[in-house]
């Protein structure tokens, strides 16, 4: 495996003004799109296979093989087909796609167009959370420039390919990062996740075949087309290869978004990349991939790497690689209460277990936080989590339950210390 110290960023390389289309072009931009459009061997199937073999796992959280997802699209029947590019980026701790919007929007656009070619797509809708208004402006500028240069629109680069690209601005709803909810939102409705089946590839946007990919996922596509799937699988962790934008926040000296190969040691990321924990303090916990991923104890980080397999073995998940580092002074009860508050606020309210469970979790955690809790409330919390997990249309209920379940399990002493002695306790 290549040493991370010598790794040169590919998604956000340090090239000045790369967000400008002429700079992007000068640095080999849109050549991969040209390649798939002009090279006879680069049939849509071949492109899909290349991406599939690269084992590009979705960077939005679920980690599903992107090429495999593309291959679920039915054969073109003449009707419209869509890509929804997911730039909702609302999971607390996640702030990486914004880097692409600001520093390398054309890489994403090129990737999206290659995906559009591979799946015979008519239009790409780039769904960006409303809070990112400044970056929506940047993205729109990049798209306008690409239209002007003939990379988007009718007869792309002189080929027969037609594809439109639009930005759709969210308006403050975490749930719209969930793919079916995102489609509902694009269709101008309340962001209620859809019941599956039918899956988006069969019946997506406006009832037509649709693929939803994360922004970072699509930005990886030109790299794969350029260098091949074998090159891609050689980067980083075997089961979860490729460059990853690590968004690292919390109690580290130099938080921010860093691009490194997947499979980085968490300790390396904290100590070497981010300059260690603020004030030289000990690590109490690390949330590895956004607020929904189970927090790991600071004393269990040895050898844990940022890839799906290693994190699964350690008892968590890769998620969005939005890592939150928490030092020894962190109040875990307070933290978990705030996470629960988030999910309570963001539950769309469609399914019973999530709508009412998230509120119950928050209220119970608030009670414990305020010193009113009893030991039995901890059992209740675990029970509520059990009653929510896997019982809803989308995974928000699971996302709300996991941080609570695993925090109570892994930091139980801290929770117990906050509970008052039950009035029913026998001495």
């Amino acid at each position, binding site marked *: 495996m290549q040493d991370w*110290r010598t790794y040169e960023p590919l998604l*956000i390389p*340090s090239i000045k003004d790369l967000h400008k289309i002429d700079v992007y072009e000068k640095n080999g931009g849109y050549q991969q799109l040209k390649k798939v459009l002009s090279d006879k061997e680069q049939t849509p199937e071949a492109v899909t296979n290349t991406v599939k073999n690269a084992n590009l796992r979705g960077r939005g959280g679920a980690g599903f093989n992107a090429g495999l997802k593309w291959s679920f699209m039915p054969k073109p029947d003449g009707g*419209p087909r869509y890509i929804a590019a997911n730039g909702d*980026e*609302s*999971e*607390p*701790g*996640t*702030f990486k796609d*914004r*880097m692409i919007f*600001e*520093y390398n929007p054309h890489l994403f656009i090129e990737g999206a167009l290659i995906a559009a070619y591979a799946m015979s797509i008519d239009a790409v809708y780039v769904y960006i*959370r*409303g*809070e*990112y*208004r*400044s970056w929506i402006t940047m993205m729109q500028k990049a798209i306008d420039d690409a239209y002007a240069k003939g990379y988007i629109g009718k007869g792309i680069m002189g080929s027969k390919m037609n594809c*439109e690209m*639009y930005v*759709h*601005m*969210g*308006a*403050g*709803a975490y749930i719209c990062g969930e793919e079916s909810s995102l489609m509902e939102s*694009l*269709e*101008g*409705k*309340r*962001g209620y996740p859809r019941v599956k089946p039918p899956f988006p590839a069969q019946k997506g946007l*406006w009832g037509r075949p649709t693929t939803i990919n994360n922004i970072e996922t699509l930005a990886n596509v030109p790299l794969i087309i350029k260098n091949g799937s074998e090159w891609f699988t050689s980067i980083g962790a075997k089961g979860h290869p490729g460059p990853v934008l690590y968004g690292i*926040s*919390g*109690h580290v000296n*130099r*938080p*921010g*978004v*860093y691009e490194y190969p997947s499979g980085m040691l968490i300790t390396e990321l904290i100590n*070497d990349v*981010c*300059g260690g924990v603020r004030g030289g303090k000990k690590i109490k916990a690390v*949330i590895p991939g956004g*607020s929904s991923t189970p927090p790991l104890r600071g004393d269990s980080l040895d050898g844990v790497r940022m890839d799906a397999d290693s994190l699964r073995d350690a008892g968590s998940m890769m998620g969005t690689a*939005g890592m*939150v580092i*928490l030092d020894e002074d*962190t109040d875990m009860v307070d*933290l978990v209460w*705030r*996470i629960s508050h*988030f999910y309570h*606020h*963001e539950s*769309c309210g469609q399914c019973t277990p999530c709508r009412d469970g998230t509120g119950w979790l928050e209220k119970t955690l608030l009670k414990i936080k305020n010193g009113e809790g009893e030991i039995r409330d901890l059992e209740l919390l675990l029970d509520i989590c059990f009653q929510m997990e896997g019982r809803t249309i989308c995974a928000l209920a699971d996302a709300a339950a996991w941080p609570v379940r695993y925090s109570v399990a892994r930091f139980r002493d801290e929770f117990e210390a906050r509970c008052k002695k039950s009035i029913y306790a026998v001495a």
Partner: protein
Amino acid sequence: MEKFEFNKAERDHIEKIIARYPDSQSAVMPVLWMAQEKFGHVEPDVQKLVAKTLDLPEAHVYGVASFYTQYYKEKMGKYVLDVCTCLSCQVCGGYDMLHYIEEKLGIKAGETTEDGMFSIQSVECLGACGYAPMMQITNDIYVNHLDKAKVDKVIETLKQGKMPEFEPIPMRVAEKS
């Protein structure tokens, strides 16, 4: 009573928005945004205008507007200070900043100053976790790395009717050791 309508140029722009989608319902979010930009809120009468413009049931527009938190269903201050208090911002002093701003402006989160200049909201993660604590001003500029001095400066700038400058995301690379 204030009358809400779109002028010809705006209506033309709306037609262009609608053209991006297979149906006009899909344009409801962008048009609500347009309306909020123009009127500063999407109170019921504005929602009615959007419904009429897009030929949608009013209840549908109301349902959508009330689902998404960034649409202001009632009038807000000229500057809405959305202070992030979620996760990374929470552990990096987001609540301290929120309370400092509350104290400074003499209002609580969810309230608007009497002169109508400022509203404060405690909001969920804004996706700037590495630059915590931070806030967003009226659905627009992100102000990162807040401390008391920076809050003072920002509020001063806003009082003069200017928005703070856009802060580029810091480009990070590990310090080579």
